[in-house]
């Protein structure tokens, strides 16, 4: 403890001063952390003439006479319009039709990949995490250590082989197979190991006595897993789902390389494609970035406790 209690009229104590300084420093850090995001939002609402100005302006609100005039702001949604490419159409439900590939193709693909992978990972990780948490068997330590070691294997070094495997399977002409299945399996295999460990940690926290009681009451071991333990583990499973969902959503290189047809590629490829096409059109790139990133930011803000739980659990293990 630092000094004696301070009266109302005394100078601030050292503790108070330190607190003030820490808050000032944190505010500054938050400012710098969010600066790139804020400027991107600003850019996304500018017109092309304002984006390509020399020297650049932060707010498109200057006039011939004044540097900043709030009534003269030239905000525009041009960037978003060029990503969405809505066209009037008689037959479409809202009177227009969306033609931008980001919204018609890439984003729906990403939603599909992220949800299917998330569900698969939750299912597999909860089954094996449960087994690791509740049973003792030979080879358990070895298997768990193996899975932990795999956690660190990056997608990148396996990608070459996966790419060749993809070509071989594609050529073999299995009915209903397409690259999407292979991509989702790859994502599942890639995000599963850490999730197994996270799931085990969550199951360890659920008292065994509940299951034993269910067994006594006549449920089968699988029945007690699905009816008693899994419902209690739901918050943990939700964390795993969200973490996997975001990871797949944000993944680029596998989605880019393992899928051969452009119409099956995910949103991050669409973003990469946009970067190549719009070298000067910063407002279009900014708008596309925001359209792709906003859903994840919203999910994160709504469920941040879930994320932190999975991350801390996973980081300690992995």
């Amino acid at each position: 403890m630092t000094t004696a209690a301070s009266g109302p009229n005394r100078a601030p104590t050292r503790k108070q001063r330190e607190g003030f300084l820490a808050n000032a420093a944190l505010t500054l850090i938050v400012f710098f952390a969010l600066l790139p995001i804020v400027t991107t939002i600003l850019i996304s609402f500018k017109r092309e003439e304002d984006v390509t100005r020399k020297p650049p302006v932060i707010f498109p609100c200057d006039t011939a006479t004044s540097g900043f005039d709030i009534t003269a702001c030239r905000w525009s949604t041009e960037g978003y319009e060029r990503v969405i490419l809505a066209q009037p159409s008689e037959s479409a439900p809202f009177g227009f039709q969306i033609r931008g590939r980001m919204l018609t193709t890439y984003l729906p693909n990403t939603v599909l990949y992220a949800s299917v992978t998330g569900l698969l990972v939750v299912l597999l990780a909860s089954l094996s995490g449960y087994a690791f948490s509740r049973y003792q068997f030979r080879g358990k330590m070895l298997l768990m250590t193996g899975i932990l070691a795999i956690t660190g294997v990056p997608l990148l070094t396996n990608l070459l082989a996966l790419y060749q495997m993809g070509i071989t399977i594609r050529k073999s002409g299995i009915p209903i197979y397409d690259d999407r299945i292979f991509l989702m399996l790859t994502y599942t295999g890639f995000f599963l190991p850490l999730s197994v460990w996270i799931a085990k940690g969550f199951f360890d926290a659920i008292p065994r006595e509940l299951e034993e009681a269910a067994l006594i009451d006549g449920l089968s071991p699988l029945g007690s897993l699905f009816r008693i333990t899994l419902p209690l583990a739901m918050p943990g499973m939700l964390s795993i789902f969200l973490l996997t969902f975001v990871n797949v959503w944000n993944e680029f290189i596998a989605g880019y390389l393992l899928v051969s047809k452009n119409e099956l590629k995910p949103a991050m490829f669409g973003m990469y494609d946009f970067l190549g096409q719009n070298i000067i059109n910063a407002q279009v790139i900014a708008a596309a970035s925001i359209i792709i990133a906003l859903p994840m930011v919203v999910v994160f803000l709504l469920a941040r406790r879930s994320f932190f739980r999975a991350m801390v659990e996973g980081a300690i293990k992995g």
Partner: protein
Amino acid sequence: MEQTVPAPLRDDSSASTRTKRKRRRIDWLPFWLILPTVLVLLAIQVYPVFYTLVLSVQERKPSGWVYVGLRNFERLFNASAVRESVGHTLIFLVGYVVLTLTLGFIIALLLNRKSRLSGAYITLLFIPWILADIIAGAVFRLLVLPDYGLFSGILQQPGIFGPNGLSVLTAPAPKPWFGEFPFPPSPALIYLILASVWRALPFVTILLLAALQTVSNEVIESSRIDGANALQTIRHITIPLILPTMVVALFSLTLGGMNGVGMVFALTAGGPGNSTEVLSYLLYSIGWSALDFGRAAALALMIAVVNLLLIAGTMRVTRLQQRSE
């Protein structure tokens, strides 16, 4: 959410007969539960490693794959592009890891004061982590677009990058000081480091903050009473106590930094020249631009060996940590 449900009254006699009967024969249930996971991991994680091994000793000729022994590795070691790329990777990793750990530690110390605003700060600081590396790269590219980027005005002084029309992302690397080793790095590599630090900071901050919260206040306070100032306390008490977590963070940053490639794609694509061509991007260009899969496999294996060493290091540290708890 941990809930406690009152357990129903136990019928002790039937419980004991059940567990006895269970113990007598092998329970196959856990194997069935684990089997799907193991199968997926074998197909997606283990088999490709062996596949890469096989690829690395072959070369694609018009007639098909031909066994070439260790020639792919030889060609890698002899290529100056590879040696330079190792240099870029080392510079990138040192800058990225040192900056992220230092800044992350400082921010975690500030957050550990448990002020009323901590939750809000953590939430806001965490937003960059949720962004994809492609998006982060795009965002940072917009900031320094030649002529039009918001920061280009400041960074585009002729005094900093030489002739007009150059910017952070287009200025060439200065003449190297030590023979082939690409030091000092190009402005683009430094900018790549800064962008990567920006994205990795939240993760490291949270990791270190979680570790800091396990350090008891009494230890800190007693050292302050003994006359140590804030810096001495941090250096002699706090850092040793959270050292294992720092090492874990160091390993995982190195691992992530070595294998992350999205930022390079979106920000620099290896350029200008090859000044930001780190190993992960080189792997992509050898494999998918030059279509030299044998040589790319050899490179992937070498990266994988370094990865394995890092993972083994992390596991050792975490085990030590668990033992000491």
